[in-house]
């Protein structure tokens, strides 16, 4: 099996983000980065599939991002991916389609049996690149996959919905986006990290066509204040219900 896994370098989220003075970007100084969680599960899914097929085939990791995204590609290779491709750009556009086109151009002639994405990138939270690439390459596409069985050239997957799931069948080659619950990613061993240093990593410039989505402003949501104490007995319940309905809008 030849599997491509598209991954993204994203900031570590346990920080207080700061908005730049011009109000359009998140300050990057001091941020740490890692592979997007969902992409880790996509990598893991790819590795497990290859292992299930007696390690015949190849897992290729593709990332669109800055030069430093090589770190994330190396990490994926430390986990076990065979080689990596970086589509290098210093400023990726906010337009998911522009990114999808750049990725599709790279994937088009790759001869992949399976293209895997994470369900969502936790930085842009666009959750659109995968199905867009599928459309551009005319591949069958299943999103939010958390269970997968491949038998020859056909496959069966289960995709997550809100509080439900769907079982789908589709032929290969195909493009899938991987959701939480599919697996738990392996941590690279030091042995893997050493081996990854010697694996091939190709760097190309990413090409973007017309961009129609732009970020015009960035802001921080209001801070979460300490709990509003509503009372010391069940007398506070009506007020709680009211707040859950009108303010928090969760009831």
């Amino acid at each position: 099996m030849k599997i491509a896994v598209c991954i993204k370098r994203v900031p570590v989220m346990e920080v207080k983000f700061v908005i730049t003075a011009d109000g359009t970007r998140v300050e990057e100084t001091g941020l740490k980065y890692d592979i997007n969680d969902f992409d880790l599960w996509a990598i893991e899914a790819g590795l497990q599939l290859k292992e299930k097929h007696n390690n015949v085939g190849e897992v290729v990791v593709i990332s669109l991002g800055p030069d430093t995204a090589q770190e994330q590609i190396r990490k994926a290779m430390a986990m076990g991916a065979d080689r990596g491709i970086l589509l290098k750009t210093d400023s990726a556009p906010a337009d998911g389609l522009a990114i999808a086109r750049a990725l599709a151009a790279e994937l088009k002639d790759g001869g992949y049996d399976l293209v895997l994405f994470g369900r969502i990138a936790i930085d842009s939270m666009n959750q659109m690149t995968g199905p867009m690439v599928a459309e551009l390459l005319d591949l069958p596409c299943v999103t939010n996959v958390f269970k997968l069985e491949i038998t020859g050239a056909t496959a069966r997957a289960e995709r997550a919905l809100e509080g439900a799931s769907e079982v789908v069948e589709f032929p290969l080659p195909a493009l899938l986006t991987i959701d939480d619950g599919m697996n738990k990613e392996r941590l690279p061993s030091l042995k893997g990290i050493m081996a990854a240093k010697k694996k091939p990593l190709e760097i190309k410039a990413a090409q973007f066509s017309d961009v129609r989505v732009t970020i015009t402003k960035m802001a921080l949501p209001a801070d979460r204040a300490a709990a509003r104490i509503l009372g010391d007995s069940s007398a506070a319940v009506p007020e709680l219900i009211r707040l859950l309905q009108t303010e928090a809008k969760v009831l």
Partner: protein
Amino acid sequence: MSPSNIVFAIILVVALGFFTRSAQRLNRWLKIGRDENRTDHPDVRTKNLLLIGLAQTKILRDPIGGMMHALVFWGFCILALGTVEILIQGLYTPFTWDLLLPRFLYLPYVVSQELFAVFVLIPVAYLLYRRLVIKPARFSGDPVHGGDAVFILSMIATLMVTLLIIFAADLRTGASPDGRIVSSLLLPLFGGLTPESAHTVSRVSWWIHAVLILYFLNHLPGSKHLHVLTSLINVWFSNTSGPGRLGAMRPMDLEAEDAEQFGASDVEHLSWKNLLDGYSCTECGRCTAVCPANITGKLLSPRMIVVNTRARLTEKASTLDAIGVGGTATAEQQAVLDKNLLDDWITEEELWACTSCRACVQECPVSIDQLDIINELRRDLVLMESRFPEELQPALTSLERNGSPWAFSASDRAQWAEGMDIPTMAELVERGEKADILFWVGCMGSFDDRSKKITVAFARILQAANVRFAILGQEETCHGDPARRMGNEYLYQMLAKGVIETLDGYAVKTIVTFCPHCFHQMGNEFPDLGGNYEVIHHTEYIERLLADGRVPLDTEHGERLKVAYHDSCYLGRYNDIYDAPRTALKRALPIMELVEPPRTKDRGLCCGAGGGRMWMEENVGKRVNVERSEELLATGADQIAVACPFCMTMITDGVTGAGSTVPVLDISEVIAARLIPGGVTA
């Protein structure tokens, strides 16, 4: 030479020949292990040999059994002189030391032989009685070689009895009675014998004695009683009581280009010293008896870690011997070689049960380092195979991403300090000021709400004492100790080097922290990575401040309390700090009564959080924190004092779980509660 001398000479040559072969084999097998220099600091090593080896200080921690063993040991040392005499007699019958020694030396020699024959015989009888009748728990449980112990003890008893018979029978045949203080008492037993019969009895006993010694010598190499020969050597080469920093994990070179194995999955990845530990273990079980994991029903037994290391070495090395250099292995032989120490002899479950509390190491009378083997095997699991309990993954991932084992934001690190007017190092630099000490808060102190109260309490003490201190705030990150204990040396070094860089950036010299794990890591393990600081635990720091009268305390008022102090392993066994927390408590609460649980100080029972256990599930057996908390509550204490945020969590959980409302407080909280507001010291 008489015919009997010739016969004995043949026996002697054969026995020594066999023994030499065994000794060479054992020595060759040791070389399967990795090379390691253990000849540094010969002064410290020799001191260890004298104290732990010859003076038997560690074995005497068990007052009865220890004294019995010590008598046997010292007896053997003294009786060795007599043994040489006997072996020479085998070749030249009339020989006695009397021929060589002046009278004033020979007489004490005779007395010593007489006395120690008894001093050995009595404990051996007791030890046999203990093995066969009392049967202490630590002699069972593990599949160990109890039968061999009985056999050896019986053999020693026979040696002593034959020796006394020789002495007494010789008196009957007219030997000098000078100094024969024991055998002269036995003489009446031989009164009915003619001198000729007595001579025969003496000769027969002599033969039994001499042959038994030679048999004993050859029995040792294949048995657990090899320790008779190796333990003194082992004590000299051991690092468990120094030289070096206690409990510091083995340094590891991750940059070595040719390194292909990290940690150990089989005996060849261990050091020769780990293998010598195997030779030196006599399966006494003192380690297992104090192991918190074992006590609470987990699979781990430190004794079996060592016993299995020896067994795997024997299995593998003897197979390699059988194959020979350049030989081809049979299928069965290959199957033996393909096995591993890890998994085939020691399982993952055992390794992850360890709390790294160091009780086993502390207890071993011959300075075996069980923990070193466990750590090396854990390293292989994580670094080579990425195999570990799945619940560790969030902690490891968070350490990598957030510089803390919990996924909290570094920007929240100094939240506790809001409104307290505590500067960060960065702020001081900006102002052009300097701090005397860096208060290292630690991840628990920064993020755990309960621990934050300790942080605040300690900061208030520092402020009350007018100490010029600063924190790192957002710049603090975990030094990676949890990762290191979990076996992830790679992550550890990454984090530790980052911290050292930060500390050196501010030219930090003195660090005070209330987390014993931070304290141990930064003080004892950072030097291997080039980070050299004076690191002080807050209990010692507070104790110094109190001793200097720098903290305005109200020591007059308050109710009389019973306080039990729980020793942290990383403070106690890792750093020998037992008195400072107790003295600090007494200074702050002169009217309190300090009570001790049965297991205390260097025998203190772990809270269960060490060795990365804080981030693991505990599903087998009784929980360690419950065991410990029950013991602390049983002292009848009104308060339990701790000196570690991890102990705090575990003991609080245990106390609450037991339905008790006894408060668990950090030493600093006890002291801070006695601060005189706005007080000035005299």
